[in-house]
């Protein structure tokens, strides 16, 4: 029999009160069902989240040198006792841009990937652990064949409808080769590896692209035809940090690198701000990203296509950050963080016409402490936002 935790009882009671208060208004903001208190360190709140077809919500957080899986059968009202993912302790990245990831394999298995930093600065390995039953995990393994002490970091994980498990990451092997030959190399490479046995093993990795920006999360989604779409911040010549999109077809043949945004932020800097992507049933590529355009830093929303994005518009206020996007038919949902000088707010905004127009912004929560980026977890028409905060734990809102 599984043990249950009631997290954040005080918050729970407050939110119950809020729920009844807002119940009589026509545009009531969704209420969080729980504030799960984890053992994550305040500076390492990076959280992976996935909603399974059976309705279970799974989240992965770093607790010291272990990753912990928490599962909720009722969308965050109650949580099972955590499962330790890596039995042997190891260094684990769990910050905003480089969080652990969790995904459901098509054979019912549970997959968790993460970046394991090595001793030398900026270096790391991409690790994966698999569980057949969601309770015990096999020993984690390093996904790539290249074991040089170099950058393999910022992993993203995708399970396609066909059951393939794909990982992409930032990889500096080509930069190292270029530098050893005394040549310049702009940015870093992007590599991928594919598993056709539900994450038990991976074929040798291969390169997708050169010249990615070095420190931003990668958006990774399935296209309507079963291809994988990879969206990342790129360094276009000479130093424009716009975004690039690449299609990896079902036979794992990478297409060309296509420029996806045209904000022309020319800067020699690390923005620490990666994009988000959601693909509609009609193939529309809804995206959110951060850029400085004509001197103004902003989060943007738009439809990615060949050439400039369609319907590009700014999201939130001047300090909006780390947005995510989901799409259900014509319903587009955005979430983001926004710090006002005192508190960080979690905001959401929806469009019911495929992103042509948006309703007014709703505030879901706010806190004076540290926060993770908001993570959307979707299963069919069910959509949750998971927000890991230092002071209230993991908050979950149904959108």
């Amino acid at each position, binding site marked *: 029999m599984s043990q249950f935790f009631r997290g954040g009882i005080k918050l729970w009671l407050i939110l119950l009160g809020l729920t009844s208060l807002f119940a009589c208004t026509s545009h009531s903001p969704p209420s969080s069902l729980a504030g799960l208190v984890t053992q994550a360190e305040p500076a390492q709140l990076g959280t992976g989240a996935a909603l399974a077809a059976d309705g279970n919500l799974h989240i992965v957080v770093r607790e010291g040198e272990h990753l912990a899986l928490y599962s909720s059968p009722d969308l965050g009202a109650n949580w099972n006792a955590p499962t330790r993912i890596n039995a042997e302790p190891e260094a684990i990245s769990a910050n905003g841009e480089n969080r652990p990831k969790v995904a459901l394999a098509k054979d019912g298995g549970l997959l968790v990937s993460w970046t394991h930093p090595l001793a030398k600065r900026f270096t790391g390995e991409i690790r994966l652990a698999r569980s057949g039953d969601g309770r015990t995990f096999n020993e984690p393994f390093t996904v790539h064949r290249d074991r040089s002490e170099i950058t393999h970091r910022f992993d993203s994980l995708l399970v396609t409808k066909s059951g393939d498990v794909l990982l992409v990451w930032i990889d500096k092997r080509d930069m190292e080769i270029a530098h050893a030959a005394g040549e310049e190399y702009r940015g870093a490479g992007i590599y991928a590896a594919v598993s056709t046995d539900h994450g038990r093993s991976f074929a040798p990795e291969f390169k997708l692209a050169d010249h990615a920006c070095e420190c931003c999360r990668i958006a990774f989604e399935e296209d309507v035809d079963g291809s994988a779409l990879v969206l990342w911040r790129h360094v276009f010549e000479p130093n424009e940090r716009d975004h690039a999109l690449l299609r990896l077809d079902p036979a794992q043949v990478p297409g060309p690198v296509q420029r996806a945004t045209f904000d022309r932020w020319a*800067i020699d800097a690390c923005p*620490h701000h990666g994009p988000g992507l959601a693909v509609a049933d009609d193939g529309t590529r809804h995206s959110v990203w951060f850029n400085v355009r004509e001197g103004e830093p902003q989060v943007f929303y738009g439809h990615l296509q060949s050439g400039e994005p369609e319907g590009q518009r700014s999201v939130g206020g001047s300090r909006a950050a780390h947005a995510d996007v989901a799409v259900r038919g014509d319903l587009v949902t955005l979430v983001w963080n926004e710090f006002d*000088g005192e508190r960080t707010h979690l905001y959401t905004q929806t469009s019911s016409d495929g992103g042509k127009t948006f309703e007014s912004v709703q505030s879901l929560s706010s806190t004076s402490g*540290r*926060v993770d980026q908001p993570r959307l977890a979707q299963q069919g028409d069910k959509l949750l936002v998971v927000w890991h905060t230092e002071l209230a734990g993991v908050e979950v809102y149904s959108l």
Partner: protein
Amino acid sequence: MKKLFGWVALSLMVLASAASAEIQTLDRATASHLGNPNSYTVPTVVAFWSLDCPHCKHYLQELGELNRTREQVQVISVAVEPLHKEHGEVLDELRSDGPRYAYGDEVPAVLGYALDPDWRGELPRALFFDGRGNKLTRSGRLSMATVKTLLELDGDASGIE
């Protein structure tokens, strides 16, 4: 007048306390002070950096060189992450000898906002003060020619917005 005297006194106190190679942890009040143009009477660069930012290290090295060749220029480094034992080692290696700060225990977003409310987290980022009450902010690794212009060292204000 009293207020101005207070600022100058506080400036001298804060800068004196950080003048050694010791790294001072930053709190909200000190962060606000570092971002305030009235805190400076000499041309000053406040350079944000982190251990994971290669561009920042090249930049700090070049700013350190500028500091040595133009004595009136002050370069203050702020590690925008909790104090780490490697901060001092890296700054020594880069010969960034000016006052040194690193984030203390307060929420990073609060400290970042107090330093520079327009900053969105990109690194490197620097604040440029001409020492006469003017302030400019720029992200990315700039050339030293641009830095000198921003500090109005050569009497050329063409780089100032």
